[in-house]
């Protein structure tokens, strides 16, 4: 399982990491098991580090302004959770509740920062990988905002045909 996770970590989740660097980082983590139904971390709690999500699946829940819990999705291992708390001091922005027995490898924020201060290349590469994850989310958010600004409409096939028509009758008309 750990080998499988290392493979995914270094190729998909954080491709900036070499296999050796990924292995070194995982060796510095603590195993954490969360039974089904229990909470891995709770919204509002101060984030203490990064969860390498090795096995299982969790539901991500956020509290609405009226206080009701709103499920915002299910995350399935392998994945990363709590990565923002590694970069910023602040509370978790959502709760992660285990839907099945979940296994994590926990990298404490202090441990991560010590490695950064010591010039550890693996830690720097992990930071770069997390920055890429956050940048992708920002891009998605920008697209959503653009869609919302356009009245909440998403591009529909008919618009795709309109774009094609415009292209064929202007740029590609001879």
């Amino acid at each position, binding site marked *: 399982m750990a080998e499988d996770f290392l493979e995914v970590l270094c190729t998909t989740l954080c491709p900036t990491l070499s296999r050796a660097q990924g292995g070194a980082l995982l060796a510095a983590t603590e195993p954490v098991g969360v039974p089904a139904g229990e909470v891995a971390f709770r919204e509002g709690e101060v984030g203490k580090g990064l969860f390498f999500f090795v096995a299982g699946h969790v539901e991500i829940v956020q509290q609405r302004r009226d206080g009701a819990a709103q499920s915002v999705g299910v995350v399935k291992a392998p994945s990363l959770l709590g990565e923002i708390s590694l970069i910023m001091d602040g509370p978790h922005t959502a709760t992660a509740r285990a839907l099945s027995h979940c296994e994590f490898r926990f990298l404490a924020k202090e441990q991560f920062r010590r490695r950064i201060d010591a010039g550890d290349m693996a830690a720097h590469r992990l930071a770069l990988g997390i920055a890429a994850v956050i940048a992708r989310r920002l891009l998605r958010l920008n697209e959503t905002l653009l869609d919302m600004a356009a009245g909440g409409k998403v591009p529909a*096939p008919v618009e*795709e*045909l309109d774009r*094609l*028509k415009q*292209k*064929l*009758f202007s*740029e*590609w*008309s*001879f």
Partner: protein
Amino acid sequence: MSGFEEVNYYFRRAARIMDLSARVERMLITPYREVKVDVSLTLDNGDLGTFIGYRVQHDRSRGPMKGGLRYHPTVDMDEALGLASLMTWKTAVVNLPFGGAKGGIAVDPKTCSPRELERLTRRFVQQIHDIIGPHTDIPAPDVNTNAQVMAWIMDEYSMIHGFSPAVVTGKPVDLFGSKGREEATGRGVVVATAEFLGDLGAGPIAGKTFAIQGFGNVGSWTARFLHEAGGKVVAVSDSRGGIRNAAGLDIPALLGHAAKARTVTGFPGASPVSNEELLLLDVDVLIPSALGGVLTKDNAHEVRARHVVEAANAPTTPEADEIFQQRGIPVLPDIYANAGGVTVSYFEWVQNIQQFTWEADRITAELQRHMTEAYATLAKVARERRVPLRTAAFIVAIGRVGRATVLRGV
């Protein structure tokens, strides 16, 4: 790479330049209809002959679909699909109001008697008559089919739907066929070659040297028209081998020899050359006019011709095409170069619809006009977009088919 994949390779190369979305690409590539039918009949010896017929109709946005019917043991759905899509782009390149189709029967006609071939053809028409028609899908001759087969198709279809000469082209001139149809592809190749050489600043056909692989309908008529234009045809070949003469072959005499001997080999005053060697001769223009896939990555580096004119369908593999591009050897692509045949098929269809006959000089003049105008458009796109002529041809074709598709509505 299958025929369909090869066509789609060139299609995608153009589509990427045009920045078409994957869904639009899929919409344009996907055939309108594929039909596979049983064509069983009682053979002359009383046995049951079981054959399979195919018809693929690729696109109908620009008009009735148009494409040949071939009788050959290797005919299958994939081959028909590739050739049907090629017809869509070919008719669009020369701006004919047709879409693309192709089909045939998986049969070796050499094993059939004329009576069996007639029954086979009529049976096939009975199976597909409701999807072909003068305004739906208009078959034409192809490999191992001829004017007689087209006459049977017209007759069988007319028995079901009433008098319909326009259901098929390539008919005998005595049965609503068109003058100039037999030599149309070769004449178109020579018009195209003249435009190509002139545009590239290589000068006229007169005085240039040519090697022609294939001496069937297309190759022999091409040789004749090149000779008439002052070109020097220095080598030709057929399935039995080839001949060469650096001073130029006497084409009228060679045509007489080939008609009697049924091969170009043994022609007096010429030395033998193999089909493989012919492709590598040092000539101004190489014209593959028989088989597909003869110019490959294995021989493209050794080709010494200054220009390649694709009179055959798909004689150049995509790998060889890339090599020619890197080596700066311009290639006049098949979808334009051999479109003279389908262009005169269009004239035949027009004459049938009009119930009016055109004289040969009108056919020649209209063919010249269509081929010249089509080349001007290709050359313009190639120059403006800095792409090879093949990519330019696909860009022009995709543009025309795409515009018709979106105007009609999806």
